[in-house]
């Protein structure tokens, strides 16, 4: 009798090397997978889900090793198997779809060549046949121009298409299992949906079993038959997908599932009408001719949060650069607290610079890895306020306290901190200057869900306490919903709509009426062509599902 389970993992322990020590990453996990079944692996970063996923292929990343346990694929033991045997399996019977297709496609070769590589190398078919199949699969995955898209180089295709091409590549040998490692995380919301749909369709069609790794419950809910929740290398909970979504057993799972709390209606402060920043008719370009920003008008009130939304390339970050003075506008004015600012950073005085601070998307690159926390936070204090010595240390501790970090962090380097903690340090650094306005550029998009939520809450609390204004740049609707008072939607370097955030989203305004819906149109239209409007309705439903959590 044939075993119904195509993959059986038992008591698997995987260790990772840190320095000269080996520490367990996956701590004795059991996993089974039936033919055609989709298993969702969910957890925050560091939960060991990717390591586990890769282990299903008998593969560990550099610096990792399988220390005990067994992995059986179709009855064959993969732990300790010959390298050549494993190689024959990989790409052939078990395929892998990586998080970033852009990085995982070899930039030097055409897509079709990379598609055909596995079947040819595994001796399944010749190039002509592979080419034929590729076109079929491309078509099934709704890739545009399936006959020719294979002959493009990876950089010539958009991110969503590339991710689908990678799914196609994984399908090339019609494997029994595909391991999807966060295949949609790096994508815009709209493209996420396209890719998810494609994955769902194709796995059903070929009855391929799949392990789907993600940190986003909304996503896994769409696909998985069964879900395993991992944390710190341990299994937290495992059950049928519907069951888990309906009735999570563990606190942690519940936490992951909980819909983000919307901010309470904020009492209008006395500064409500007080405008801190105004941008008038600003245009800018990097090379003098191609305008990246055109005729932007914008005003931010004291103590309020404005969200600037739009897809990548819509000019959001450029606008931030113009406001901060990194890119002088080619026309228009920037008025800060009633005073017109010089366009160039170098011409602005220190006081102005102090009152406008910035927080970045990637805390990793925003913090100098060679400076201690005390220096990172301390520098603005001594720089702007000329406070030194003990007094400065006291202030640093205050700031750390404000961002809910212990004072002992002062002597640490950024690399010794987690992502969320780093972002808090960034916030502390901005606060150290005692600013009136903080520009937040995608500050949560690099963080795990729970961590991001914590950071947003912190920002809100600080706003309430300090009366600081935020210009919040994001492409993530959940964030907008969580924090913004007003929304500005940008598309192709222009502001296409603006309005109140809360009424827009809370009321589920029909298309074309509120700000939020404009946003959705803006997002939806970008890159899809306006003649495909009928498609929008369906898109909208899916999108809303993502925003509001799973509705099944």
């Amino acid at each position, binding site marked *: 009798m044939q075993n119904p389970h195509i993959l059986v993992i038992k008591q698997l322990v995987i260790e990772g090397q840190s320095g000269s020590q080996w520490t367990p990453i996956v701590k004795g996990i059991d996993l089974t997978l039936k033919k055609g079944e989709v298993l969702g692996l969910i957890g925050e970063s560091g939960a060991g889900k990717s390591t586990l996923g890769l282990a299903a292929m008998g*593969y560990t990343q550099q610096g990792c090793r399988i220390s005990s346990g067994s992995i059986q694929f179709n009855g064959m033991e993969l732990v300790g198997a010959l390298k050549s045997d494993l190689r024959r399996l*990989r790409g052939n019977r078990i395929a*892998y779809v990586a998080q970033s297709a852009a990085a995982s*496609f*070899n930039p*030097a070769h055409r897509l079709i060549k990379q598609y055909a*590589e596995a079947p040819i190398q595994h001796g399944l078919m010749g190039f002509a046949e592979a080419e034929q199949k590729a076109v079929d699969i491309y078509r099934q995955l709704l890739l545009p121009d399936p006959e020719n898209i294979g002959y493009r*180089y990876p950089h010539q295709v958009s991110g969503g298409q590339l991710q689908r091409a990678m799914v196609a590549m994984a399908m090339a040998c019609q494997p029994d299992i595909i391991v999807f490692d966060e295949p949609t995380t790096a994508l815009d919301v709209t493209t996420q949906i396209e890719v998810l749909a494609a994955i769902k369709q194709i796995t059903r069609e070929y009855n391929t079993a799949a392990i789907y790794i993600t940190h986003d419950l909304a996503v896994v809910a769409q696909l998985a038959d069964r879900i395993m929740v991992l944390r710190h290398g341990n299994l937290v909970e495992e059950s049928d997908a519907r069951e888990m979504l309906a009735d999570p057993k563990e606190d942690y799972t519940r936490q992951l599932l909980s819909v983000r709390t919307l901010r309470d209606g904020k009492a209008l402060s006395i500064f409500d009408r007080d405008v801190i920043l105004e941008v008038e008719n600003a245009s800018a370009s990097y090379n003098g001719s191609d305008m990246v920003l055109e005729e932007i008008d914008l005003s931010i009130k004291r103590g309020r949060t404005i969200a600037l939304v739009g897809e990548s390339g819509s000019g959001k970050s450029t606008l931030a650069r113009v406001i901060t003075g990194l890119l002088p506008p080619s026309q228009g004015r920037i008025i800060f607290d009633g005073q017109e600012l010089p366009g160039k950073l170098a011409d602005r005085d220190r006081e102005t610079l102090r009152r406008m601070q910035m927080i970045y998307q990637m805390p990793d690159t925003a913090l100098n890895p060679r400076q201690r926390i005390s220096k990172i936070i301390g520098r603005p204090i001594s720089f702007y306020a000329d406070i030194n010595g003990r007094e400065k240390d006291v202030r640093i501790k205050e700031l750390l306290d404000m961002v809910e970090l212990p004072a002992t962090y002062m002597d640490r380097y950024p690399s010794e901190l987690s992502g969320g903690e780093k972002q808090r340090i960034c916030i502390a650094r901005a606060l150290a200057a005692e600013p009136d306005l903080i520009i937040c550029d995608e500050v949560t998009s690099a963080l795990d869900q729970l961590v991001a939520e914590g950071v947003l809450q912190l920002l809100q609390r600080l706003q309430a306490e300090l009366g600081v204004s935020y210009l919040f740049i994001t492409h993530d609707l959940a964030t907008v919903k969580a924090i913004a008072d007003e929304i500005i939607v940008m598309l192709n370097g222009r502001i296409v709509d603006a309005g109140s955030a809360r009424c827009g989203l809370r009321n589920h305004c029909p298309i074309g009426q509120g700000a939020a819906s404009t946003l959705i149109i803006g997002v939806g239209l970008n890159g899809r062509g306006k003649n495909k409007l009928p498609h929008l309705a369906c898109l909208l439903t899916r999108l809303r599902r993502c925003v509001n959590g799973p509705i099944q």
Partner: protein
Amino acid sequence: MTLFIISILIFVGVEALPGDLTEAVLGQSATPETVAAFRKELKLDLPPHIRYLSWLGGIVRGEFGNSLANGRPIADLIGWRIGNSLFLAATTAAIAVPLSILLGIVAALYRNSFFDRAISMVTLSTISFPEFFVAYILIALLSVQLIIFPSISNINAQMPFLEKIHAIVLPCLTLTLVVVAHMMRQTRAAIINILASPFIEMAKLKGLKKTRIVIFHAFPNALSPVINVVAVNLAYLVAGVVIVEVVFVFPGLGQLLVDSVSKRDIPVVQASGLIFASVYITLNLLADMLSIISNPRLRNPK
């Protein structure tokens, strides 16, 4: 433009050298009268800027002028020497470039293996010896002990091609040893750098063989740094081999330049300096172009 500035710099540089051609040529037997007469004949008594401008005028018309020291046309003087220099450089490159890339790939393929370490130690040692010393050792081994190759490579225009090749085996080998290390290490480093990319992991997960991964996936993406290091080494092979030329009595451009500097033969220095500079610039341009061609991202814009 760069060439123009270089020509001015060279001119000023040689002008700044103490003494001039007449004193250098006459040496111990220079007397004030002979020096003055000599200067007059060579128009060295004119102010420097006028000499520079007349030289520049000549260049614009495509004339390099005559050597001050022996009155020969510089074009003749330089012509066959640059041919020789290029011949030596080309022959060396023909051996060294494929060899170092191959070694680099193999070292990257079996990195941290015995082979990798051995090859890295050997190449490291070859660059750790002074160039002339490598040359002497090769001569002592291959020319004096085992009489296989000639110890001097005084090739001339009348020599048949094969004889020429035979004559330059040792300088070629010396230069190969000198440049291979650099290129090989860079190739290895570039490939290993690429090996950390996600698409390499992807390739592994496609079940590809190690060889195929390195050659087909890593190497094409490491081309750009490899091309650049090859260009730098080629420029060195053309212009920087004075010492090898001296040791092997090879009639190349470097020796001409050194001799001319010591004799203050400004037009020759100018001309050969310009040639070196143009070789350098051309090679760099070529490297940039090849980098672009080798990179589909730059070759096929969206």
